[in-house]
């Protein structure tokens, strides 16, 4: 069944995406979002193929400075054989033209998951310390899990606002002047 275009990417915050087709305004590419499983798909050769890592407009912007620690909390479900997975988070720069994510700093951890036939929920968090050479366009974050030859994750664009990069004085005012007794 053909779905009609609903809204362009970047108009809604991610938590409000509804099931339907969306158009990337930068590339013109159409994507399908299934809200019931929170999964993006691309239409290829008549099939909807899941995107392993989808890019979404960040639901909020966090002010953060070089030297600060960013905590990313995540969750996912897994079913399959026992496997050791890598949970991975990073801060980087997503090229709006190139559509290439240039990772700048990351943190990861491994976790052993038991065999299960029903999708089981896992949660976790990773702390990333922003280095002192962080620059202003490091404003995107990516988080993913991989293992057993599979990978799934999410990328938030514009998630960070890097502050405190330059020494800056502003609104200097001489409040008063008088002879001191």
């Amino acid at each position, binding site marked *: 069944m053909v779905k009609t275009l609903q809204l362009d990417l970047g108009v809604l915050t991610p938590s409000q995406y509804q099931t339907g087709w969306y158009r990337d305004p930068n590339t013109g590419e159409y994507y399908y979002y299934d809200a019931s499983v929170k999964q993006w798909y691309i239409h290829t050769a008549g099939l909807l193929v899941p995107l392993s890592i989808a890019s979404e407009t960040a639901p909020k912007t966090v002010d953060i400075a070089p030297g600060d620690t960013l905590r990313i909390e*995540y969750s996912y479900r897994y079913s399959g054989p026992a496997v050791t997975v890598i949970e991975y988070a990073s801060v980087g720069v997503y090229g709006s033209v190139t559509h290439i994510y240039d990772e700048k700093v990351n943190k990861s951890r491994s976790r052993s998951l038991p065999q299960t036939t029903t999708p089981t929920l896992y949660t976790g968090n990773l702390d990333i310390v922003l280095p002192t050479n962080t620059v202003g366009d490091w404003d995107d974050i990516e988080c993913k899990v991989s293992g057993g030859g599979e990978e799934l994750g999410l990328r938030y664009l514009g998630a960070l606002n890097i502050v405190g990069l330059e020494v800056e004085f502003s609104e200097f005012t001489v409040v008063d002047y008088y002879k001191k007794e």
Partner: protein
Amino acid sequence: MAGKYTEIVGIVAPSSAVAGQKVNIEVRIKNTYSASIGIMAGGALEYGVTPWPTIDYPSYQANVAAGATHTFYGSFTMPDSDVTIHAYSYWYGSDGAWHFDDDKTKDIDVAELVPEFSQFEISNYSRR
């Protein structure tokens, strides 16, 4: 082909299951006698090991009215190879013994368990 007084009219089971998974099955046995009789269900798994592992029926006996069909619920743990469910029916005689009557089989393939991630979410991110 039906037995003397009973007939296994169906085995309900999945066509495939993952090794180690609990598999629930139903064995439906009809009383073909002209009066109510005691019917017992039995069963085994055929996949190359002896003795054949049995199927667990929490309730394996029932008095069944003439012409009625009773469903016996059973389960087993799927081995790491394809199996054949071999179900049996017995009727209870006036001699106080259970008499083997009918049997039927159904194949279950072992399914490969493939890794799959789903519903990935970034639930929060913040400066610590």
